């Protein structure tokens, strides 16, 4: 049966190549856009190094203090995590590290600006970096404030011309560090562990950060299992709710442990930032609606082209109806035909999106991005094509199947 449908589809598509080309252009462009966004989201959100264990990770990436008149939002402070996030139930490892800090290095009169992250030793256990040379610094290095650093492949290229960097020293922002390890570059889309240089927390120019509950630091907890995530979230929220705020102008502190998607959603315009509740579902809903709005025009366009071609099929429909084919089976046939058309368009879209993604990677718009059409993105692409085919196929199929057999045999209704 399906083979018969397939033969029919190809016959119909070959009958009027111009219209087929119009339809395919619309379909492949629409799916191209959806797939490029899917691939970018996949590259930013799916578990991969150095966040392979991300399904067991929760992090605090923003902190907000509220008072009756004033509010203050920034990253959390070291003291907040050091005092309140240690020994949370269900946590295997907790790491505290700084947000982006820029560091400048001068080689002769050449100026190199790098991102510097100051971390504790546990950072290297929570995130699984790929080491090209050497290894991470440990808790002892952090404790003794040793000026050691792990750098990325690009930093090695920029500072040492790509040669072996182990044990060599470099200067960043007036401080001198000795390289103990080199890791693979991290995509900018992985903005939590991404940096160019990693150094122990204690190498900060002053230790003022140790007293702050607001500003400049992140904490990421690696849970024992995914079942422990709600427990960690609730326990930390409860501890934060009980703590005494140092500034009387503020009444509440909101700094929840969240998944990355929830923390991205927290920065979106429709999030409720005053609540420690999860914000991710709202953003997901918004994006689904945005995607539906985007596909409306292509859908209407495809429906129009298909409906205008109904009469081509009039005699076929008339004969099938005259021999007693039920409307249901005709609808099924036309919907399947439409899905096959969108799958063909999807295949073109997939090839094009691979090209677009490669161009995006080369453009450097997102540092070290490696957008690809992997198996997962391919799967999403197929699903999107099928959904688009169903979405745009039902109405024309219904119209076709409702043609009156006598009129259809005569060549269609005189509309």
């Amino acid at each position, binding site marked *: 049966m399906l083979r018969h449908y397939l033969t029919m589809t190809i016959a119909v598509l070959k009958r009027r190549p111009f219209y087929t080309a119009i339809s395919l252009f619309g379909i492949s462009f629409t799916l191209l856009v959806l797939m490029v966004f899917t691939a970018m989201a996949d590259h930013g959100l799916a578990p991969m190094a150095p966040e392979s264990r991300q399904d067991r990770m929760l992090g605090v990436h923003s902190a907000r203090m509220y008072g009756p008149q004033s509010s203050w939002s920034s990253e959390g402070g070291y003291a907040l995590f050091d005092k309140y996030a240690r020994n949370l139930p269900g946590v295997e490892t907790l790491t505290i590290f700084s947000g982006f800090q*820029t560091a400048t290095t*001068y080689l002769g*009169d050449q100026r190199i600006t790098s991102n510097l992250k100051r971390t504790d030793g546990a950072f290297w256990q929570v995130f699984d970096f790929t080491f090209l040379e050497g290894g991470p610094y440990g808790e002892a290095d952090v404790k003794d404030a040793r000026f050691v650093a792990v750098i990325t492949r690009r930093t090695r290229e920029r500072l040492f011309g790509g040669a072996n960097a182990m044990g060599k020293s470099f200067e960043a922002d007036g401080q001198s560090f000795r390289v103990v390890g080199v890791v693979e570059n991290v995509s900018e889309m992985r903005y939590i562990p991404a940096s160019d240089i990693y150094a122990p927390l204690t190498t900060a120019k002053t230790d*003022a950060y140790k007293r702050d*509950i607001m500003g400049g630091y992140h904490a990421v907890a690696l849970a024992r299992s995914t079942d422990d995530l709600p427990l960690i979230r609730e326990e930390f929220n409860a501890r934060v709710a009980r703590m005494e705020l140092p500034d009387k102008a503020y009444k509440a502190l909101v700094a929840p442990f969240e998944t990355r998607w929830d923390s991205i959603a927290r920065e979106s315009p429709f999030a409720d930032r005053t609540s420690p509740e999860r914000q991710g579902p709202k953003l997901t809903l918004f994006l689904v609606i945005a995607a539906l709005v985007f596909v409306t025009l292509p859908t*209407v366009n495809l429906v129009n*082209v298909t409906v*205008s071609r109904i009469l081509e099929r009039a005699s076929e429909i008339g004969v099938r109806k005259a021999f007693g084919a039920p409307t249901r089976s005709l609808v099924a046939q036309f919907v399947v035909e439409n899905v096959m058309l969108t799958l063909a368009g999807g295949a073109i879209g997939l090839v094009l999106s691979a090209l677009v993604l490669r161009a995006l990677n080369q453009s450097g718009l997102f540092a070290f991005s490696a957008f690809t059409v992997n198996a997962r993105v391919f799967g999403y692409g197929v699903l999107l094509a099928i959904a688009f085919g169903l979405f745009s196929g039902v109405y024309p199929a219904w119209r076709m199947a409702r043609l009156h057999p006598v009129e259809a045999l005569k060549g269609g209704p005189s509309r």
Partner: protein
Amino acid sequence: MTRHLVRLIWNRKRQNLLLTIEIFCSFLVVFVVALVGLTYAVNARQPLGFDIDRVWVIDVGRPRGPIGETDKAATAAREAAEREVFTGLLAALRELPQVERAAGSFTGPYVNSTWGSGATLTDGRQIDYLYNRVGDDFIPLLSMPIVAGRGFTREDDAAGDDPVVINAAMARTVFGDASPIGKVIPQKPDPQRPPDRPAEKPKRVVGVIEDFRQHGVYSMPGNVLFDRLRIDVPDHGVPDRLLIRVTPGTSAAFEPILIRRLQRESADWSFDVSTMDKLREQSVKTYTIPLAVLAVLAGFLLLMVMLGLSGVVWQSVTQRLREFGLRRAAGASGLSVRRQVQVEMAVMTTFALIAGIALVAQIPFLPRPRELVLVPGIFVGAVALSAAAIYCLTLACGWYPSRLASRIPPADALRYE
């Protein structure tokens, strides 16, 4: 004739409704691009208000004090020390032969952070403005054109009020056509002021600058108010930035010299230099990249719509051979048949546009974020521009099929029946 055409369109209402919906959606797409594009185009014609030639900016990172420090004396001592360091930095910069001018400032041109403030005027109006606290050298350093009055100078040291410089737009908003120089901004006291903080001094206008559009040529012009930074006064805080103008011919090789000089002044502070050109490039990108992505998407969508509409109209012309043939046989000219197809397109477009305009006309009445300013002229212009574009698009789609329709030989068409 028109009634007849409307009836013909009505007879094919299902197909035509679908086409109308498609035109309606296309209108919305074009409208969004037109609104953003037109806003940029109008903004780009407004004066920028400063010149960044040879200007560099140094971000100054200070070790932060503890949050919520309760020991008032300790805070005061720490801040006094920081102010002293900052004064030292300014003096050190001014001694360097490559530095023409140096000024402290909280934000600056193309700097990512924005400091906004607002006030309630005595007549009840609420105004928002872009705020900055700048050193005396800030205005001449950026060659900012002064429309009336003067910039900040040493004479202001003795002033009892707070001297401020505002931009022309703010002068118009607050004082109308009257000269603002020497007048105090008529401002109600802040009801949310904590009781332990001293009342604000009146703000007396000493000068009016043309403008200061911090985020560049595409940004929305608005009100601007500058306070005078006095590094020797406790309440003024310590600025986050140092702006310098270097002498002509100074190259990037000067950067490390500059940084080392500053580091020598204060080892535990951190400094990050960038040239204004680089900051501008980044800042402009935040405006142009979203528009470019939007325009490319809209362009492809419209190309798809054009192909689709042409195809559908073409198809319907070939299906209506008999109708057109009959009209030709009854004496209608080719031109008249051709016009019929085009008028049908135009009627559908009109219906789609009425619906589309009715929808976008709701936007000014909907709640929206404060950053999203709608200028009535630009909004109406965008509606007109996109409506015109859609008419052109649909008529272009009808052009070839209508020519086909007019060329149908009546005899052939009738024989077909």
